[in-house]
Each structure stands twice: as C-alpha cells, then as structure tokens.
C-alpha cells in the first residue's frame, strides 16, 4: 500500500492481495489525500471517501453548492434542509466552515484553487480524457451538473471507478467512446483492480489489487508506458 502523500510513484507497483470493494477503494484514496488538502468529492462513489478521512486529517472538503470545510453526513436532529452536499444529502459543518454563492464556488474551482477532486467515470482514456456525464444514448436525459467545471478546475483530478463494466470491458481505454467531460484532465485512476497514474508520457500502474501487474496490463487495450518489473 502506498504511503500517503503526493510524490509521484517511482519503481515497482505496490500490491494488495485481493480485488478491492468500492468501500476499500475509498479508504485507499482517503489515505492518499495529504493533510491540509482542499478536496472536492464528486457525487456517487467518491462521496464515500469522506467516511474514511480520519478526524483531524486537516483535509478541507469543498462542496460546489457553496461551502468549504464540510463535515460528515447529518443524522437525526442534525439534519438541516438548508445544509446539503452537491448530491443534495444533508451534511454538517466543521469549525472554520465558510459559505459562498455559486459563482464564487465555481470561481474557486475553475481558478485552480482546489488541490484534488475525485470523480466517478464511464471511461478514462490513455491521454487523460474523461467521460462521466452522459451515456450518449438518445433516450437518456443529458445532465452535466458541475462535472465539466470540476474536470478542468482542480490541480489533480482523480477518478474512482470499477475497472470493468458489467459486461467485462475495461473502462480505461485508448479513446473514449462516450461523450467527453474534459480533455486530458485526469491525473490518476483508482479502480478495484489497481491504481494508475496518468501523465504526459502515458499510463503507469501504481498499485495492483488481487492481480499481477503484467496480467492487469494485459487486460487493458492500451500500452502502458512502463512495463511493470514484477508480478
């Protein structure tokens, strides 16, 4: 397992001996977020990461509906309909919270002030292209929310997703077939089978879960930039 902190991973990939559940993956991502980082967790799976941030982690959560230093989900009497996260789930505030309006919130994002955002995805391409807002199916109501703003806004965009679709196709692809959310914006992909760093020179395996690096590489329809050194 990787140490927390942001230094680019060098050398052989770390590994865990079983494929991770989404909850375990959320824990891994939580440990990779450095103390003091300003982070936006996208709706859906990434929201789970908040549950794994230790108390006093110093990570400051941003929610695009206008808040910094968001606390955990609200329960019982703490539920306040005026205080929700971007998924419209009631949440709480931590000491040192601040509220701001929507234009200020997205200025914060678009201006590159967030350190990390973690998003779900349909597909991520070799070059960091992201597709996560629309299946492109004609009968699907298109809905983008803040995804395109987040994709181009944070200093690092992490994706959290199962590596394979239900029918077994890799979601890490040579070229996205789904409509794009952002171009070349993803810097790291967390999946149940392993973690991938996406850089200018291509994709590199950072960690593997329940699978050898070579085997993992073979499952993908893309060339990895650095053949793993061990299995």
């Amino acid at each position, binding site marked *: 397992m990787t140490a927390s902190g942001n230094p680019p991973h060098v050398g052989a990939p770390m590994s865990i001996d079983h494929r991770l559940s989404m909850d375990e993956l959320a824990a891994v991502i939580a440990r990779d977020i450095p103390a003091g980082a300003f982070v936006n967790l996208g709706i859906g799976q990434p929201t789970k990461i908040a549950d794994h941030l230790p108390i006093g982690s110093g990570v400051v959560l941003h*929610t*695009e*509906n*206008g*808040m910094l230093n968001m606390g955990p989900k609200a329960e019982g009497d703490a*539920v*306040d*309909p*005026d*205080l*929700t996260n971007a998924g*419209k*789930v*009631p949440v709480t*505030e931590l000491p040192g919270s601040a*509220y*701001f*309006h*929507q*234009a200020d*919130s*997205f*200025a914060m*994002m*678009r201006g590159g002030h967030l350190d990390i955002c973690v998003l779900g995805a349909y597909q991520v391409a070799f070059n960091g*292209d992201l597709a996560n807002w*629309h299946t492109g199916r004609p*009968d*699907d*109501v*298109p*809905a*983008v*929310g*803040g*995804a*395109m*703003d987040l994709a*181009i*806004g944070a200093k690092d965009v992490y994706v959290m997703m199962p590596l394979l679709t239900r029918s077994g196709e890799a979601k890490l692809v040579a070229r996205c077939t789904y*409509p*794009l*959310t*952002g*171009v070349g914006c993803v810097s790291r992909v967390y999946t149940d089978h392993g973690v991938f760093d996406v850089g200018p020179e291509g994709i590199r395996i950072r960690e593997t879960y329940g699978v050898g690096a070579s085997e993992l590489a073979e499952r993908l329809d893309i060339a990895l930039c650095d053949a793993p050194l061990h299995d």
Partner: protein
Amino acid sequence: MSRAEIVGSTDAAVSGIEDGATVLVGGFGLAGMPFDLIEALIRQGAKDLTIVSNNAGNGDVGLAALLAAGQVRKVLCSFPRQADSWVFDGLYRAGRIELEVVPQGNLAERMRAAGAGIGAFYCPTAVGTPLAEGKEEREIDGRKYLLEYPIKGDYALIGAHRADTLGNLTYRKTARNFGPVMATAATTTIVQVDEVVEAGKLAPEAVVTPSIYVDRVVQVQTRRYTVQGAR
C-alpha cells in the same frame, strides 16, 4: 427607481410576470428553493416561461409543480436528471418541454456576467466536449477557452433568510447557492424571506445581497423540505 418594496403577499410579489418571460429560479435541489413564490406563480398563471435553475424540479413541489402546471416552455439547467425529477422526465420524454443543459459553473458565471455588465467571457469549461458545439474557441496563454455569453432574466425568484426593510439580504448555509447571483442578473428580483427586520439590524459586513439588487420582498412562514424526493 429601484428601491425594494416589502409586499404583503406572495401574490402581490409575483404580479406582472408576463407570458413568455425568462425567470431565474433559485435553489439547489430543494435548498433555497422559493416554494411560496412558485406556488403564487402557479396561481398567477403566466405561461410559456423559460426557467433558468440548477435543476429541473424535485419531487412534486416547487419548480416541479410549476412544470406540472404546464407553464414552462423551456428549461436551462445543469442537472435535470435526478432520482426524483419525474415531472420533468415525463414532460421531456413526451416532447412537451425544451431543455438546454449548461455546466453548473457556466450557469452561475453567465448570470454573474449579466449582472456585472460583462459582454462575454472566455471560460475553460467544456472545451473539447459536445457542449462546446457552436461556441467560439480561443487559445490564450497556451490554454483553450470557449466564449460564453451572459444569461439575463426578466425576473428572479429566490429564497433568502432575512431581509431588512431596505431589501438587504442574508442567507442560511448552503441555501445561499444561486440566490445572490440571480439577484444581480434579473430586471426584477423577487425574494421570499423567513423574516423582515428593521434597517440597521443586519450587520453591514454580513449582508450578502445589497438592497440595490432587490425589488420585492415578502415574508413567508418557513417551510423547508428535508428529504429529496419526499412526496
């Protein structure tokens, strides 16, 4: 002159809204949604409205009820597809309502531009995606941007927490969301508040929307919907 008027009823507050008007409607999901003003607008009956709002209605209340009443021709929003957006969904699939999807940050910034007298602005959001179609692209300092134009409203309907008798506003928690931006972007801004207080009772440093942006204020009995999708 535009000094705010404190009116005695929500019906008086929404009077004069014409068929075909563009109406900015505050709220992010249900937080900050001006429920009472929308109910008055349903009674008032204006038709063929273009609604600008983050979502396209939740459950059967607020914006969803306005859509159900058949008063809306078109919706500009970022995220119409939610578990509880069945009213919009039905109308959309039946071809009875138009939809324009706008990334959430662009929605906010384009309204800010309308309020701030900015003619247009270059924004990095959505570059290289299907939502860039038809937009002018320009490279500035090595980064690509799209030219985005202001979104102006004839009316804004927003919810705030307190108003003073001059029309200065404060908001509660994340219910602030689009309210302050929409207040600047509409010709006539109509606000429902929990409480009207005497001028001088709001801390001048804590005012979020200065009175100059507010045209009509009505005090209503607080009604908040706690759970998304609650019927």
